[in-house]
C-alpha cells in the first residue's frame, strides 16, 4: 500500500429492511488510491452497502466518513462520488454526449469547456465516434463505457463500481476490466468495487473484503484471501477447493489428524478451535495436490483411480476416486497422457490441507 491515508471509513454500519438485517455492524476503512473489492454471493448486502455510501440509502445505525467528514446524512447529490451501475442506468432520453455532459451541466461549468472535457473523456473510453447515439442504439459494452465516462467526468475522488461487468460477456468483461485498471492509474481515484466474481476480485483489487450475510468475513490482499482463508466460507467461496469431511482424531502443534471413511489425512488447523471427536472439513486446492505412479511418502498419500478427465483449454482436470464416494480434483499438464481407469497415487501436502470446523452449507 502507498501511504495509508484513510479515504472512506464505514463505522459500525447497520441497515435493516423490515426484519431482515442486510448489513450488520460493518466496519471498513478504505485507503486513498486503493481499489477495494467487496466480494460476496448474491443478496449478501453489497449493493446496499454501496448505496449507503452514495447516499441513496441511509443507514439505520453507524456513520460514513469520507476524508474525515461525516457524510451519513448528507444528500446524495452533495457527496461528489462517482458510481458505475450494474444495469448501466443511463438516461434514455439523452445522447451519449449529453449523458456524459450532464454532471458538468449540473455543476454549471462553461459550455465550451464542457464540450472539450466531454470529448476528451469519450476518447478515453473510446466512444468519441458514437457521441450522438442514444443508449438504446449501443451495445452493452458501449453502454457501460458511457456509464464509466459519466462517473469519471467530474473527477470524483471516490468511484464506486456495482458489479459493472456482470451484464457483459466473458471476453468483454476482461477487456473492460483492464480498461478500468488503466483509467484508475490515469485518474488516481479511490474505489470500491462490488462483484460476485472471484476472478475479477483477485485480478483487480489491492484488497478484498469477503462478505456474507452483511458481515465481512475476511479482509486482506488477494494473495492472503486465496492462500490463507480464515473461515470455511472464504475457503469455499474464493477459488476452487476439494472439500473432504471427516472427524478429528488427534492433535499436535497446529496440526490435526482427520479420519475419513477408509483413510486418514493430516492438516493445518489455524483459525478454528478444534477438539478430538469434532466433525471437520478439509479444504485443499487442486493445484496443491501432487501425484505420481509411485508412492514416495506414506503420510497423506492415497491410492486412487482416474474416474473422469475434463480438458479446459489450459490444462486437464482429473477426478480421482480415492475411496468409497470420495473423489479428488487435481490439475494436470494439458500434454499429459492420462487415461480414465488408470491407477494413481495422490499426495495431499499436510500444510496445504486447511482444517475448519464443519459448517452447514448455506
Amino acid at each position: 500500500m502507498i501511504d495509508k491515508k484513510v479515504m472512506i471509513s464505514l463505522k459500525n454500519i447497520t441497515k435493516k429492511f423490515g426484519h431482515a438485517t442486510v448489513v450488520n455492524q460493518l466496519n471498513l476503512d478504505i485507503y486513498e488510491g486503493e481499489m477495494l473489492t467487496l466480494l460476496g454471493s448474491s443478496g449478501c448486502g453489497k449493493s446496499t452497502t454501496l448505496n449507503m455510501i452514495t447516499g441513496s440509502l441511509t443507514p439505520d445505525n453507524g456513520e460514513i466518513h469520507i476524508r474525515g467528514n461525516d457524510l451519513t446524512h448528507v444528500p446524495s447529490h452533495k457527496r461528489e462520488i462517482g458510481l458505475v451501475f450494474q444495469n448501466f442506468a443511463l438516461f434514455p432520453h439523452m445522447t451519449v454526449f449529453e449523458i456524459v455532459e450532464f454532471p458538468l451541466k449540473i455543476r454549471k461549468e462553461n459550455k465550451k469547456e464542457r464540450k472539450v472535457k466531454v470529448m476528451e473523456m469519450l476518447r478515453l473510453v473510446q466512444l468519441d465516434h458514437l457521441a450522438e447515439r442514444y443508449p438504446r442504439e449501443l451495445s452493452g459494452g458501449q453502454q457501460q463505457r458511457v456509464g464509466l465516462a459519466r462517473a469519471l467526468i467530474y473527477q470524483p475522488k471516490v468511484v464506486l463500481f456495482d458489479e459493472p461487468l456482470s451484464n457483459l460477456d466473458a471476453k468483454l468483461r476482461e477487456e473492460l476490466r483492464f480498461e478500468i485498471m488503466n483509467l484508475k492509474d490515469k485518474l488516481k481515484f479511490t474505489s470500491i468495487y462490488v462483484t460476485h466474481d472471484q476472478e475479477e476480485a483477485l485480478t483487480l483489487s489491492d484488497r478484498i473484503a469477503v462478505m456474507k450475510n452483511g458481515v465481512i468475513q475476511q479482509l486482506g490482499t488477494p494473495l492472503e484471501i486465496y492462500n490463507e482463508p480464515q473461515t470455511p466460507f472464504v475457503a469455499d467461496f474464493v477459488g476452487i477447493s476439494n472439500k473432504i469431511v471427516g472427524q478429528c482424531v488427534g492433535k499436535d502443534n497446529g496440526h490435526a489428524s482427520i479420519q475419513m471413511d477408509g483413510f486418514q489425512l493430516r492438516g493445518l488447523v489455524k483459525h478454528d478451535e478444534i477438539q478430538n471427536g469434532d466433525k471437520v472439513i478439509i479444504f485443499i486446492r487442486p493445484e496443491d495436490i501432487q501425484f505420481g505412479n509411485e508412492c514416495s511418502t506414506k503420510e497423506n498419500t492415497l491410492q486412487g483411480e482416474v474416474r473422469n478427465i475434463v480438458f479446459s483449454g489450459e490444462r486437464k482436470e482429473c477426478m480421482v476416486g480415492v475411496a468409497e464416494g470420495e473423489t479428488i480434483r487435481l490439475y494436470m499438464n494439458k500434454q499429459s497422457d492420462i487415461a480414465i481407469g488408470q491407477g494413481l497415487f495422490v499426495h495431499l501436502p499436510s500444510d496445504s490441507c486447511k482444517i475448519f470446523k464443519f459448517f452447514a452449507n448455506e
Partner: protein
Amino acid sequence: MNPITHSIRAVRTGKKVVIYAFLLGFALFILSPFAVIIVSAFGEGWFGARWLPESWGIRWFQWAFQMTDLVQVTMNSFVIAALTIVISLLIGVPTAWAIGKRKLRAKELLIALILLPRMIPELTYALGTAKIFYTLDLINTHLGVALAHSTITIPYVVLIMSATFEALEQRVIDAGGVCGANWFQRFLYLVIPMSMPGILAAVIFVFVTSFNEFTLSMMTYGPQTVTLPIQTYLSIGDGYKEVASAISVILLIPSILILGVIVKQIKPENLSGGVKGL
C-alpha cells in the same frame, strides 16, 4: 403449387376478407354520425326523407357567426381547456407521484377515492358542484368552469401519470442524484423528459375532455363563459339544427388536429421508456 400451401393461402385470404369486413363495419359505425353532422353543416335544403341535400355551401357557418358570438365562444373553450390542463397537472402530477413512486399504504383506497366522482351520474355530481360554486361565486368565470372540468379530468391524469411514474426506473433517477443533481434538477432534467409520453397523453386527454365537456359546463356556465358544446346545445334549443352542426364541425377541428399529434407522437417505442427527440 403445393396443395397444402395453396389451402393455407386460401385460409389466409379468407381471414383477411373477414378482418377487412370487420374493420369496414367498425369504421362505418364510428363514422356515420360524423357524416351526418358534416352533411347537415354544409348542406342546404336538406328536408324530408332525402338522402342528400339539394345544394352545398357555408351558409350555416355564416349564420353561426352572425347569430352567436362564435369567436368569443371558441376563445372561452380554449381558455377553459388550457386552465383545466394547468389545474389538472398541478394537482394530478404530485398526487400521481405519491401513488406511483412512494410506497403508500392506502394506495388502492386513494385510487378508489380519486375515481369516486366518476362513479356517480355526472348530472348529480354537477348539481353538487354548481351549488358549491354559487356559494363561492365561481359561476360565470373561466376559472370556475375549468375547476369543474378538473374534477373529472384529475382522476385520469392521476391514473395515467401514476402508471407512467411507476414505470420509471428508480436507478436512473438515483444516477442523476449521484451525478450531482438535486431533487428539482432530477425532476426537471430526468423525470419530466422520461415521462413525456405519459404527460402528452394526459394533456391531450384533458384537453379533449374539457373541450367537449357538456354536463358540468351546463351547470356552471354564465353569459361570459359559454363554450362550444353549450353553444351547440343552445342553438339546437333555438331550433337551428344546421347551425348546431356547423358549430360541431368547428368543435371537431382541434380534436382532429390532436388526433394527428397522438398518432405521430405516441408510438409504442416512445411509451416503453426510450424517449427520443421529444
